[in-house]
């Protein structure tokens, strides 16, 4: 993807330009928001800045309306579609969670089957709770050494399609949080051959559209819909996102689906950040992500030179479950120094003032992006060297297994709304769970509504709790009790 491939003038940013115009017109606001360009809330204005609160405005004719875009928002969406090689792009303001939910709700209805890997983000299963579709899980391969879930193998997808010919869509998590990619082109082909849609949760792959030497993007692979977290690698504000669609998808219907749950007061801070970030990526993304990939490669070499740690990269590629690897991701396996990933994550923050994206049982992930500099990378590497020197111990007693094959008993929607009761966690073996249990981040469920609770799963939960993982999802925030089907 590069500037030459686009047909529109990517140096334009219509929402940003309209807001600049609007500011110059000094319009008197007798509309919401009530802070009136910040005057009514001086403390907030002092904190966020006049520039910022001054463009926190409401939808109006010169600024268009996200519920039904006809002017500057429509133009910004056209530019985004053009930059990402999509037939249509929707600006989203409810996080990539809202993109994922709109994507799933567009593709399937109550009772229909959807094929997906089990290590999806909770937003996907939440969407199934909302719409009542039935998940058909393809179990991801697990790398035994690293303890991480990989991509879907072609053969497994083919089998799921053959076993469930009436399924309406195949959803692919591409790349995973760790940067692992499936054979997206082949999966799209298989889905289309079977008359199914191919949906891609591309939350961690915004940069695929703008990098040289990076894995194929969903739109380039021919997928029908994709969710890209512009606020992750793309540089826009937190909570802004894009939903991309291919030529087969009816854009008007997608808009209706989005409007079921989307705010009618979409934030212009978020929308302008999408507009400006898209412009930046289209004009400079290729160069920027080259630098990010180079920096990540440098960090991998330096971390591996420390010893003990394993910062993994393209050497993992196996042609199938690890079809490709996103080299901008910096994931490090920590078990060989005798520490769980979550422990290294905590030490980095508490003792070295370094906040990384997450730590799980066996790995940490440092998120490198558009805003990073080499000098901070040096700090991270040196801190890891120090942690090894000070804390290294025998790895005995450390678990590595991250993925446990679930037994789906009922659909997520049925389980979520069914009569339930609360049981002490330790006494719940054999019951059917009616809520989510996950470590956050990464937010991939250990248990989803409708799944059988097993001794193995309970052991995993206890271990993750003991190592300091933050457990989210259940009604009981301390997770001493769990809701099961009555």
């Amino acid at each position, binding site marked *: 993807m590069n500037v030459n491939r686009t047909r529109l003038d990517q140096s334009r940013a219509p929402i940003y330009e309209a807001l600049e115009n609007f500011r110059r017109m000094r319009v008197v606001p007798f509309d919401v928001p009530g802070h009136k360009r910040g005057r009514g809330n001086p403390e907030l204005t002092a904190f966020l800045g006049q520039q910022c609160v001054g463009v926190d405005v409401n939808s109006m004719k010169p600024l268009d309306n996200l519920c039904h875009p006809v002017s500057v928002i429509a133009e910004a969406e056209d530019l985004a579609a053009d930059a990402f090689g999509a037939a249509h792009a929707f600006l989203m303001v409810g996080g990539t969670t809202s993109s994922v939910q709109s994507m799933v709700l567009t593709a399937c209805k109550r009772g229909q089957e959807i094929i997906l890997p089990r290590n999806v983000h909770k937003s996907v299963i939440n969407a199934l709770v909302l719409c009542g579709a039935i998940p058909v899980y393809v179990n991801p391969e697990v790398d035994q050494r690293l303890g991480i879930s990989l991509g879907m193998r072609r053969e497994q997808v083919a089998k799921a399609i053959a076993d469930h010919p009436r399924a309406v869509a195949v959803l692919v998590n591409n790349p995973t949080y760790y940067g692992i990619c499936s054979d997206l082109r082949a999966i799209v082909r298989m889905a289309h051959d079977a008359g199914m849609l191919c949906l891609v949760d591309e939350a961690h792959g915004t940069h695929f559209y703008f990098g040289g030497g990076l894995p194929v993007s969903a739109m380039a692979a021919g997928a029908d819909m994709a969710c890209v977290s512009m606020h992750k690698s793309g540089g826009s504000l937190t909570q802004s996102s894009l939903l991309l669609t291919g030529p087969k998808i009816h854009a008007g219907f997608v808009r209706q689906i989005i409007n079921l749950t989307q705010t009618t007061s979409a934030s212009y801070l978020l929308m302008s950040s999408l507009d400006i970030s898209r412009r930046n990526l289209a004009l400079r993304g290729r160069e920027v992500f080259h630098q990010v990939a180079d920096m990540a490669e440098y960090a991998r070499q330096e971390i591996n030179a420390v010893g003990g740690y394993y910062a993994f990269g393209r050497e993992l590629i196996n042609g199938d479950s690890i079809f490709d690897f996103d080299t901008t991701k910096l994931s490090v396996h920590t078990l060989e120094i005798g520490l769980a990933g979550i422990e290294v994550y905590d030490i980095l923050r508490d003792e*070295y003032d370094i906040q990384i994206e997450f730590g799980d049982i066996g790995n940490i992930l440092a998120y490198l992006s558009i805003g990073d500099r080499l*000098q901070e990378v*040096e700090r991270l590497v040196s*801190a890891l*060297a*120090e942690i090894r020197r000070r804390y290294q111990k025998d790895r005995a007693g450390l678990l590595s297994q991250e993925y446990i094959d679930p037994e789906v008993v009922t659909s997520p929607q049925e389980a979520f709304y069914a009569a339930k009761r609360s049981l002490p966690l330790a006494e719940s073996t054999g019951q059917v769970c009616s809520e989510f249990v996950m470590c956050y981040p990464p937010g991939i469920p250990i248990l989803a509504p409708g799944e059988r609770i097993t001794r193995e799963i309970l052991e995993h939960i206890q271990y993750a709790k003991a190592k300091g993982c933050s457990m989210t999802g259940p009604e009981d925030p301390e997770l001493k009790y769990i809701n099961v089907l009555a």
Partner: protein
Amino acid sequence: MEMWFSEFHTPDVKHSIRVDRHLYSKQSDYQRIDIFETPEFGRVLTLDGNVMLTERDEFIYDEMITHVPMAVHQGIRDILVIGAGDGGVVRELTRYDRVERIDLVEMDPQVVEACRTYLPSNACRMDDRRVHIHFLNALKFIRRCEASYDLIIVDSTDPFGPSEGLFTREFYGNCYNALRANGIMVNQQGSPFYAEDASAMQRSHKRIATTFPISRVYQAHIPTYAAGYWLFGFASKKYHPTDDLDAEAWKKLNLHTRYYTTRLHVGAFCLPAFLEEMLMEVED
């Protein structure tokens, strides 16, 4: 004509030096480097607009950061100097015959080049055969070193710019690891006077104190630095900065100094009450 160089020591305090001529100005990969000719302070080197040294008062800084550890530990042979691209620290260290090797790690080659041309009285010993210059990020250099040095001198800029990484716990830990069993680390520790400087000083003191068994602070009067009042950190695995001072041995070397004396050495570790309190606050 009036031409002045001004530096903000806080948002509300400005220190100005009259300038005769602007001799050098260059934006390197890391920072903006300027050298001025001034009537009162001679040549002045600034990085990103902050005074690094002046010909008139650099002797105070360079003598205090070198002779204090050298007078304590008689076995110093291998030295690592971080920053200090102007050469003043190296100039003082090369006066000792017992020094066998000085590794100078400076991030910015442009600083060294500018100082060789415009500050020859500082850079005069950079070509000494014992001096080895490495243009590298210091964190990268030092994490590969283990028990290799007797003395590490950290001559960094302030903790709010490109040198931020040299005030971190990971860096001090790497230094500890790079020192031999009786090694010493001396660093410029900033000023305790203005609030923002003071809290940065406290943070770095805390990090050093949790890394080294012995960690003390000493002071000097440096007119062109913020508040004219500057601190150095003395962190050590074995030697105490005043109990282990061997004044007789140092005097026998017959080094002529303009600021440092062995009597001042002891006095420099006697701190004002407010500063003792600030240090104690972070030592527990």
